[in-house]
């Protein structure tokens, strides 16, 4: 059973770490490293979006990048046209949420389940990818923003202080703002999961039939969870667009969707910290591999994925958790103390 968030020490530890990184990193680290970590922060938000709907709603999306890309393109088009980034950021949440709700309605009220659900989300992302790749010609522009097809949209504005489009954030400030986003989303998700709504969605994940027999509207619940996940992925996409200052169809690609799956999987399904850790680890690894000249980096990454699935099927965080718990029990035993049943159960 989930503890109330406010009584979970882990929650405070995470928030404290987050705040510490947010305020200390810009002072301690050089510019390049800051920009580097900013990337992990952005992708962590994306990982959280899938970690939430998969781990706490039981919805497995193979096409989470559709929302990521939708948010990114929404932000790019809106901010280029408006010359400001505040409203586009809001739009990058609202539009993917609405799209998620619509797609969720289409799927869950059509009683699609497991693999079929995965494939439908994958197909939607693929359609996006095909169509956005097809927008190379000059006829595909929205306002003053050319969609650019395969080459994508360059020169996307940097985030600025709301209401003052000339006050651009420098990389350090941008990092802090993004870190703030990540923390807020993490905290919000923790509370959402611990709320009545969250408990119901977990019960649906565990047993859909029983939940519906208990009188909960399973389909409506799933649509809402899916839409929230879509909105968060959309924000991540917008952050990505403004961080990189360009966006291209890669953001909607199968690779991007699959990356999110691997992060969540590697970090641990059913946790929120896991996807973040998985994302940071694997992204860092990808980057390191590109600096090594000897071996083919794609092959190494593939091998690591296989080993991960075979050796750590539960993911890093749950495995570490049970190892720690096991160690704790052993230690208690060595202390000669009786173990209360409650500890074991937890």
């Amino acid at each position: 059973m989930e503890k109330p968030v406010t009584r979970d020490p882990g929650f405070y530890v995470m928030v404290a770490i987050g705040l510490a990184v947010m305020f200390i990193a810009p002072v301690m680290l050089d510019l390049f490293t800051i920009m580097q970590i900013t990337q992990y922060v952005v992708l962590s938000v994306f990982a959280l979006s899938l970690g939430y709907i998969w781990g706490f709603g039981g919805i497995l999306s193979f096409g989470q990048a559709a929302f990521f890309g939708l948010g990114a393109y929404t932000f790019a088009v809106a901010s280029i046209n408006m010359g400001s980034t505040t409203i586009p950021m809001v739009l990058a949440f609202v539009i993917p949420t609405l799209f998620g709700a619509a797609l969720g309605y289409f799927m869950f009220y059509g009683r699609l389940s497991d693999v079929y659900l995965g494939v439908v989300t994958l197909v939607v992302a693929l359609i996006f990818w095909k169509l956005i790749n097809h927008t190379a010609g000059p006829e595909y522009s929205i306002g003053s923003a050319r969609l650019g097809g395969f080459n994508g949209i360059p020169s996307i504005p940097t985030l600025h202080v709301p209401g003052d489009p000339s006050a651009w954030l420098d990389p350090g400030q941008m990092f802090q703002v993004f870190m703030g986003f990540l923390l807020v989303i993490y905290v919000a998700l923790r509370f959402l999961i611990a709320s009545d709504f969250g408990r119901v969605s977990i019960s649906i994940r565990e047993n859909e039939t029983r939940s519906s027999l208990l009188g909960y509207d399973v389909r409506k619940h799933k649509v809402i969870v899916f839409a929230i996940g879509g909105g968060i992925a959309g924000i991540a996409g917008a952050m990505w667009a403004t961080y990189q200052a360009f966006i291209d169809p890669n953001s909607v690609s199968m690779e991007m969707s699959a990356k999110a799956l691997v992060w969540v999987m590697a970090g641990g399904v059913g946790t929120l910290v896991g996807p973040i850790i998985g994302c940071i680890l694997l992204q860092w690894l990808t980057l390191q591999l590109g600096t090594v000249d000897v071996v083919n980096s794609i092959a190494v990454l593939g091998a690591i994925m296989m080993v991960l699935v075979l050796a750590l099927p539960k993911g890093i965080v749950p495995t570490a958790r049970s190892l720690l718990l096991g160690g704790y029990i052993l230690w208690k035993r060595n202390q000669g103390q009786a173990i209360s049943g409650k500890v074991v159960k937890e």
Partner: protein
Amino acid sequence: MTILSRRKFLHTSTAAAAATLASPIIARAQSDTIKVGGLHDLSGALDAVGVPMNQVFQMAIKEINEAGGLLGREVEAVIYDPQSNMSLYSQYATQMALRDQVDVVMGGITSASRETIRPIFHRYDTFYFYNTQYEGGVCDRNEITLGTTPAQTVARLIPYGMNLYGKKVYTIAADYNYGHITAAWVKRYVEENGGEVIETEFFPLDVAQFGSTISKIQGAAPDFVLSALVGTSHLGFYRQWAAAGMKSEIPVMSTVLGAGGSDQLILTAEEGNGITASFGYFEEIDNPTNKAFLERVAQEYPDKDWVMSEISEVTYEGMMIWADAVREAGTTERDPLLEVLTSGKAYDLPAGKVKIDPKTQHAIRDVYIAELQDQVFNIKESFPDSPPTDTQMVCDLVENPDSNQHFEISL
């Protein structure tokens, strides 16, 4: 206005941050080695193109070092593999500019990758050489562009084809920026020469089945087909074209085939025979510089499974031209180097004579038309000193040195 202020803002703030944090590194770098960045895809979808570029790049550096380095210092290569992924391009570009503090960067293959890294190098004042043939239009004082553009190649290829085969042209092109712009140029040159483009079709980069198109082309019965198809999936066209027995019926010309140095090897001799292409370099070029160059390459990479192509040779040119300018200017600072580079000096390179046009900072170079026969391109005609007239239409860096854009040349 806003763009300017933003750049300026970023520029000052990041430069300040970089200066305070990285000053010891800069000091060490100056006494130690001269660093040259290489950004070519060594894995992923574009590796067949990136690997030869990178090998030639390393060979050029070795050659420079064997001749005693530059300014009494050794030249060191900083190489990253962006894995055919635009986000990694942006990552490594930032890393080269801020952390490694390289003196110059060679690299970028697709226009998408160039447009990803060009603004980064511009922002951090890292001198940048782009060595790939592309659709034209880059106007950036921080970039030297040495590859050919459509005004150099397509403009020669079209009249050549129309003379030989006739005036009705069917264009098939890859569905992205390069394909669209090239197709527009094809239309323009065909019409200028009194011909007609009867149809233009675009194909997503992952399309591998061309049966329906081949039927459509047969229905339209053009005098020749002009292909701006890109990538290995699109090689399927040439293969299926030959399979349908069309080789003897309608000739094919291409603006891309052979650009990477592996297409002509992947296609069998029967499939490739008779396809005509135009580039700034072919292995067959007959001059002593080229002979010596190819010999060195064969020595350095005896097991290579690629053919020297324009983009690899031009990568070599980039290193050599830059090194020459460094020797002459006595520094690696960008502005003195630019002065030397745009002074109208002609460089004697494997591809022939190369000059840099001060207006566009693109190359004025010899362009060749060649026909594929038994997996080898045989040169049919050459056009010395071809200027990049397309980019010249939109770009004048002498007038507007602050320009920082990739113009879409509208026709």
